């Protein structure tokens, strides 16, 4: 099964690559746009509809595929892009179906008004469920959405004066005006379904390539790394929940029109799971995958409909097999293009590097303390950092170097003490807020985003606040040099489209540092940047750090590589057991007895 699936996807990918190479570049650019895919879907579906007629069995199946695809695309926003597993897409579907049915049957609303209201109802329900759920991990979200499913099913029966209870609602006809006569042709509903499906595809693909979508995927892949770039996670999850639920409700509204009769039986909890299997089979987080999943899982079960129980057993078994053998689905690529970021970077002009001259103090840490349980990782650290200065932070393992970076960058709140940037207090701000004020950092193990393309990594960081042009140029130049050091040619668009999960550790280190420079920080914190790099790479890295410092970026560098420290830094701070042991010129470091004692245990 696994071979079959991976063979299938490999040959699909190979065919796509052959097709790509055979088309001229401008055509390729147009074809890569989501709007082209959406238009192609619209043309194909309309042609098939014209061929079969909307009332034929094939025509009905086509409409069913289209409307299920809408719910599946919505779930892909929630589960694929945001990584929030939702067991409640069936609930949104039911809400949309009933809102539409009630508006049409009891109030005679036209189709163009009923469907948007259904989508809005889904949006509201999704936002409501996502609001507390935005703080939760995957498990909490899954359970909240499961609960919502159970509740919605109860409520359909509870409010029977509105919903018709177990009897359901019938006579859901398409109208063109409030209180008008139902239209007699089935073409109206059929065309609406096909158009909505194509537009939904386009919206869902645009969501992914928008700034919000990129942030959403970054938070899914690596929330801590995202927060270090100033991207906060809470809102991306809530918005994804709401948007996904809106599409689910829209799909339910279309279902109402297609069936003309609905009852609670049509909305069992298996429906939610069906949508989930469609997304996972197609490829959660990919743009085309969910459509394929919806097509397959509408067509195959229709063939098995005559055997009871078989369909649900098939969904379950398929999901088990997928999770064991191909958890990322048929279309496993989740990266999206962001060519502008790479183009901008490649176009950065050469800059004149001024002489390094540390300026006025900008970051001040006063008596900073941080304890974990009974351990005082930081026992009162005070230091200051000047504009354009490079400070080396060294000390034995467990001396509190990384904790100091984590507290300054807002990843841990301080237990006591003050951190000020330009005189304003940073203590108590979250990591994303600290990053937006101009403090950027890297981590010991690079925190990059495995499911995103290199281009997207570079498009993610944004510059917040005022920076002079020389500093911006220096940061961009530095980022470009880092990419080149990491073996990435910024003029090669194919390289920019690779997913970072395929890259080696060393390259990710350069990519992460390039992202940190992408925010053009006032303060740059580097946590063991040289670990695992070759001598030439270290040399290149040093030059970049030195150049951006010369342009005014203040740098703190935690490193065990003492040669690098003595070549690069203006000042060394030695930490031991959470306190500053010594501070001074790197040239004097080896002559200090207390430092030697801390490192080597001899006086």
């Amino acid at each position, binding site marked *: 099964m696994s071979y079959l699936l991976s063979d299938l996807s490999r040959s699909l990918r190979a065919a796509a690559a052959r097709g790509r190479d055979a088309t001229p570049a401008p055509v390729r650019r147009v074809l890569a746009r989501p709007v082209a895919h959406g238009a192609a879907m619209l043309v194909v579906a309309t042609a098939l509809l014209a061929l079969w007629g909307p009332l034929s069995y094939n025509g009905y199946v086509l409409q069913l595929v289209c409307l299920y695809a809408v719910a599946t695309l919505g779930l892909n926003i929630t589960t694929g892009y945001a990584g929030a597993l939702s067991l409640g897409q069936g609930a949104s579907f039911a809400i949309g179906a009933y809102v539409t049915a009630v508006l049409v049957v009891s109030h005679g609303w036209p189709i163009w008004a009923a469907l948007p209201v259904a989508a809005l109802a889904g949006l509201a329900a999704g936002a409501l469920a996502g609001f507390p759920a935005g703080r939760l991990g995957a498990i909490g979200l*899954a*359970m*909240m959405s499961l609960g919502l499913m159970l509740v919605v099913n109860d409520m359909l029966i*509870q409010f029977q004066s509105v919903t018709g209870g177990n009897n359901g609602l019938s006579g859901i006809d398409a109208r063109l005006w409030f209180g008008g006569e139902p239209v007699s042709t089935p073409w109206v509903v059929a065309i609406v379904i096909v158009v909505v499906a194509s537009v939904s595809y386009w919206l869902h693909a645009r969501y992914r390539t928008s700034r919000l979508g990129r942030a959403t995927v970054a938070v899914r892949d690596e929330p801590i790394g995202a927060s270090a770039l100033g991207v906060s996670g809470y809102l991306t999850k809530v918005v994804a929940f709401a948007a996904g639920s809106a599409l689910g409700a829209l799909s339910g509204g279309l279902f109402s029109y297609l069936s003309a009769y609905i009852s609670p039986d049509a909305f069992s909890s298996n429906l939610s*799971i069906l949508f989930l299997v469609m997304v996972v089979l197609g490829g959660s987080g990919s743009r085309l995958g969910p459509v394929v999943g919806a097509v397959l899982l509408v067509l195959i079960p229709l063939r098995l409909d005559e055997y009871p129980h078989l369909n649900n057993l098939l969904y379950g078994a*398929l999901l088990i097999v997928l*999770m064991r053998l191909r958890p990322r689905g048929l279309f496993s690529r989740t990266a999206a293009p962001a060519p502008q970021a790479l183009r901008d970077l490649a176009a950065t002009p050469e800059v004149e590097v001024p002489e390094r001259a540390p300026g006025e103090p900008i970051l001040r840490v006063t008596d900073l303390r941080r304890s974990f349980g009974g351990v005082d990782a930081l026992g009162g650290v005070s230091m200051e950092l000047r504009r354009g200065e490079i400070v080396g932070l060294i000390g034995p393992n467990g001396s509190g170097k990384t904790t100091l970076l984590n507290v300054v960058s807002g990843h841990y709140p301080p237990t006591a003490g003050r951190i000020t940037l330009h005189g304003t207090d940073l203590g108590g701000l979250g990591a994303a807020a600290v990053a937006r004020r101009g403090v950027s950092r890297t981590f010991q193990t690079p925190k990059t985003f495995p499911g995103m393309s290199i281009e997207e990594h570079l498009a993610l960081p944004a510059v917040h606040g005022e920076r002079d042009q020389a500093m911006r140029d220096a940061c961009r130049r530095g980022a470009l040099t880092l990419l080149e050091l990491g073996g990435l040619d910024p003029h090669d668009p194919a390289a920019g489209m690779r997913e970072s999960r395929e890259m080696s550790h060393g390259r990710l280190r350069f990519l992460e540092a390039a992202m940190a420079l992408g925010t053009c920080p006032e303060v740059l914190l580097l946590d063991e940047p040289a670990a695992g790099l070759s001598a030439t790479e270290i040399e290149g890295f040093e030059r970049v750090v030195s150049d951006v410092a010369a342009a005014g970026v203040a740098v703190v560098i935690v490193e065990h590589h003492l040669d690098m420290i003595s070549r690069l830094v203006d000042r060394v701070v030695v930490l031991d057991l959470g306190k500053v042991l010594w501070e001074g010129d790197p040239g004097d470091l080896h002559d200090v007895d207390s430092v030697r004692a801390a490192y080597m245990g001899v006086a």
Partner: protein
Amino acid sequence: MHEFLQTVLVPGLADGAIYGLVAVGFATLFTTTGVINFAHGQMVMLMSMSVLVAVGAGLPVWLAYVAALAVMVVVALTVEWTAVRPFVQSGQSASWLLSTLAVSVVLAELLAVPYSGESRNFTYGVSKHRFDLAGLAVSPAELTAVAALFGVAGLLLLFYRRTRVGLELRAIADDLDGAEAIGISRARASQIATVLSALVAAVTGVLVASTQLVTPSLGMSYTFYGFVATAIGGMGSIGGAVVGGLVIGVVSQFAGVHVGSLTVNLTVFLLLALVYVVRPHGLFGAAPVRAV
């Protein structure tokens, strides 16, 4: 007051004991493997249904119980192999959520095959005939449910603290690589935890069948209620599971009697939302100390 005790507290505590047992079953698997088994509610129903089917096939009741337990162990080991072991302490919650959910779908569908999924009366468990106890009508089944909750929780706590195997399971939970490095088998630990959790499900299944009609489609609801109990108590805490279960039992019974039976799920859902807003790590759970 007597009215409240009789219509809310007694049945509420009995139901709550069952939700608590579901939550204890979750905790048993979760502490060792870091996996919450979404199919646990189906495992509970599987026990009741297996006994029913075995007796229906003509087996004597004691043999039916033996057969049902054998089914539980075999199914548990299969579930462990397909849906739990690949994700032991992996931190990838989306993966095991989906894999155990898939198992739940399969089990739910299989449970709907005998008797076409209709409710059945179960007369082979603890008696549900009520007698008078200090002025309240209670059944042996209800008393047994509450006793079983505390008994099972107590035994498990002893097992984790006093036996070598229990200690090994906790070691796997604390540090998978470290535990494997000193020779504790991840596969065996995961198997033991899954079978233990299935045995808790077996006890729960008998009690569910003894206190109410056996409705095979209720598996997912038990999973949800048990999870809300877990969320109230705190993930992986057995004591928390006991408290959480009893709280939900009484609250949902109160809603069912005084508001309406269709508002029970809603009440439990709102309770879950409240817990997440007020105390996201539950009463006895702790927020992780280090994240970066």
